[in-house]
């Protein structure tokens, strides 16, 4: 029997920010290798799960990498339109991460 924990409990940092004017990049950073490996191996965070969470086609995610030196999982989403265009909601792209908090990560009992 296995339980789950929300990603926000396992990560040290979960953030989003513009990467240039056409993309927003997301960093999920872990304080220790055990948490990083647990989340990485759980496959709870993949191009497909993130696309489903943000209700976008997977090809809108331009980069999805496991970044060993930073103990991080990182992905980048192409914006609907360039940052700061009329109708903009988040000029810096800095408040697009919170839906990641509650992603359930299977953990050993």
């Amino acid at each position, binding site marked *: 029997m296995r339980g789950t924990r929300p990603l926000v409990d396992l990560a040290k940092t979960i953030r989003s920010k513009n*990467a*240039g004017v056409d993309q927003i990049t997301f960093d999920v950073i872990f304080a220790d290798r055990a948490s990083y490996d647990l989340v990485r191996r759980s496959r709870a965070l993949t191009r497909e799960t993130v696309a489903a969470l*943000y209700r976008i086609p997977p090809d809108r995610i331009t980069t999805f990498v496991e*970044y060993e*030196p930073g103990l*991080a999982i990182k992905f980048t989403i192409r914006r609907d339109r360039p940052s700061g*265009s009329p109708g*903009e909601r988040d000029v*810096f792209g800095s*408040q697009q991460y919170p839906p990641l908090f509650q992603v359930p990560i299977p953990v050993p009992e």
Partner: protein
Amino acid sequence: MPDRLTVLSPTGHLGFTPIETGSFQVGVERRPDFLIADSGSCDIGPHPLGADEHPSPQAWQRHDLEVMLLAARRLGVPMVVGSASDTGTDRGVEQYARIIRELAHAHRLPAFRLATISAEVRPEDLLRRLEEGQRIAGLDGRPDLTVDVLKRTSRAVAVMGVEPIIRALDLGADVIVAGRSSDSALFAAPAIRAGFPEAAAYYLGKVLECASFAAEPFMGKESILGTVTHEAVTVTAMHPGQRCTPASLASHAMYERADPFFERLPGGVLDMTHCRYEQHDEKTTRVTGFAFRRDPAYRVKLEGAGRVGERALSIAGIRDPYTIRHIDQVIAWARGKVEEAWGQPGERYRLFYHVYGRDGVMGAWEPQAAITSQELCLVVEAVADRWEDAEIICALGTRNLFYARLPEVKGTAGTAALMMDEVLRGKPGYEWTVNHVIGVRDPLEFFRVTVAEVTG
């Protein structure tokens, strides 16, 4: 040839908020060879470039330039500032150069040489290149630049690499004010000029460009000191409460970048795939293993913004739970009334309803469908070519929130609370039109270096 070169980086965005001077003075006491800071950002949106305005208060720009200039002249070392006044247009370069001259006069500084490097590109010049058949390739999934998009571009800049800065140093500049610049190139230029490997020089730039963001715990506007040798780059936090650690430096590689392994630069790419990070002393981390690969053809990035129209904004609150449950119908009613008078949105006008309390921050990306608050805030945003039109469309689209005809509404005296019955004038709307690269024969092609003596 020297065996090491040290650079002090006091801020990741000069003028945006003032430099913290305590850790800067700690850094100055280490007698760095250069003081370097970047002032630019695209994060602030397309308005400052398109309208050619400075988004940072001039008092803060002056503060940061004064802190750096006085220290640089006292140490007798060069100072380099890039992407002057956020956008790096000619106006920004002239503004910073004027502030430097005023500061030199106010402090009666001994004579020094001031270099300015312009980076602005006239849209007509790009149009001519397009008409000559030159390709201007889109970045980040954009199509190639077309004549139509260029004609919608109010203002454009080219992003310089190390070469114009090296030229300015060769001309004996003590202070360099550069237009739009690659952040890393500002720091890499003196290291490459001094004969250090390109990979180490560009890594030095990559890690220093945001100053204390590369250290931990999180603090902005504090200084860090970078040292390049022929083998490695070491980075030290100057604030007594901060450290540079393998984790803080590695994390910084991914900050604001799509890919943490590769940094695209004018003329090539910095490869950080095999970087090794070791704690050198308590506040210092040592990095090795970077590589730099030159592109077969030198390419320069172009940035441009175009005016979309005048912007009007108004604010309404909704408290009736029945209206909140039917908010999409309310908005559809108000849109419908605007369309009756102004036709379908498109070329003539655009109208946006930002529903704070539901998906005001995330829009279509918001995964949570249910509204859980007892009240909503609506910001109505109208864009039209003329201010008078934007104002009237915004008023019509807001006041009709009031009159939405819902079948079971009880509050027939009005279904919206207007914060005030007025429409606010926003800054004109701009859009990033150019995020492209162009091949050049000469890395200095878009940049003009001028040197003049400044006497206090």
